[in-house]
């Protein structure tokens, strides 16, 4: 039984979200996205020339994502540099953003997205995708829709949203499902699952994810407005 959440939240309540656009000066677009104690910084560079040349696509531009956890982002220092896990998350981030961006105007070029996790407390890939989406909009890359991501799951016997580290490692069993959505199109571009969950519970969890993604979109809209409204 998981009757009350450890941090006192409601079961459908998100952690406190804070976001900021334009945090990396040297990048063409950048954003910071903080949800609870998870902080992600994304920087977008490009469209720019793609090398090695054989990777170029003359039909449309390429999206290239790189996810990296900083060595001090977790309690016990992790070895810096690429790992099996970061390669996987880079790939799913790329696939989550791909349907939202339209790079047909930039053949033979690449748009690079760098996601750095500064501090981790579960849900890093979701925070990374939210930050990347803001950074892409900031860079002025043509986009079909924004991308919002949140993790939902089952902790003990409860379906809840935005798991923190304690809930992810809950001893009586928990399952964690990161979801990325394009809210206007109502499409899911990332869906992973770690743990066990019943079919009807997935449907319930996805409903919860949809509602939460709409909340995140409002926050994304607000921060973009703050930077650009007067421009």
């Amino acid at each position, binding site marked *: 039984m998981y009757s009350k959440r450890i941090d006192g939240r409601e079961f459908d309540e998100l952690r406190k979200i804070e976001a900021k656009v334009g945090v990396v000066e040297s990048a063409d677009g950048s954003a910071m996205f903080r949800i609870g104690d998870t902080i992600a910084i994304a920087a977008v560079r490009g469209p720019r020339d793609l090398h090695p040349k054989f990777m170029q696509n003359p039909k449309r531009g390429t999206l290239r994502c790189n996810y990296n956890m900083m060595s001090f982002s977790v309690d016990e220092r992790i070895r810096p540099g690429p790992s099996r896990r970061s390669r996987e998350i880079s790939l799913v981030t790329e696939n989550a953003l791909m349907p939202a961006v339209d790079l047909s105007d*930039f053949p033979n070029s690449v748009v690079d997205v760098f996601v750095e996790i500064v501090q981790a407390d579960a849900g890093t890939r979701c925070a990374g995708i939210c930050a990347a989406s803001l950074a892409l*909009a900031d860079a002025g890359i043509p*986009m079909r*829709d924004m991308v919002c991501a949140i993790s939902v799951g089952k902790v003990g016997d409860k379906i809840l949203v935005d798991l923190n580290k304690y809930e992810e490692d809950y001893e009586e069993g928990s399952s964690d499902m990161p979801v990325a959505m394009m809210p206007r199109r109502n499409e899911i571009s990332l869906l992973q699952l770690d743990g066990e969950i019943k079919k009807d519970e997935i449907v319930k969890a996805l409903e919860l994810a949809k509602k939460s993604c709409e909340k995140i979109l409002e926050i994304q809209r607000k921060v973009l407005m703050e930077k*650009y409204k007067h421009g």
Partner: protein
Amino acid sequence: MGLIIKEKEFVIPGDVIAEGIDYLPAGGVFREKDKIIAEQIGIVNIDNRLIKLIPLTGVYKPKPGDVVIGQVVNISFNGWSVDIGFSNLALLSVRDATSEFIERKSDLSRYFDFDDYIVAKISNVGKGNLIDLTMKGHGLEKLHNGRVIDVSPSKVPRIIGKQGSMINTLKTLSNCMVQVGQNGKVWISGENSERLIEAIRLIERESHIPGLTEKIERLLGSSGGEQ
């Protein structure tokens, strides 16, 4: 049906601007089924039935007819490759470079050498982003001395002003030579360039605040008094 977001409103990618087939999409927006949707951060602009977005951010997108400032990065046997601040290089062929007769196999660096800045016009943007430049036209030349600064391409219209009002103010008050490229590169030459750059940065920063011209006049006018 009809407009959902009014003119001059702020939109982010994915916002539905209008529904139905009464409106046509132009730059910065696209049609998905019967909806017209923004694809960039910008301000909605409606011209009759045409919906356009004035982008507030983004890299330079080359259009035929744009006058740009570029840097020569490569010299090949039939022309020059020019960096105009876009992902692909632009090509300036010998034929379009000068009205002089250039003999075959002659040394092309005599005309434009590596790292030279030039003012050129985009004559054509082909498929796969092959950009052709031409130097035939009034004011299209190699730039000597001076310095080139980068500004956001979306602020270029503000630096030029209505019928060139702002740029003329800048030129007369600072006694500098200024050349603005549509790609967001500004070439400045003259003694008082520091003050002028300050003024340009002010335009970039406060392009939305009314009374900008007066502010610029005050900033540049005071420097004129010192001399």
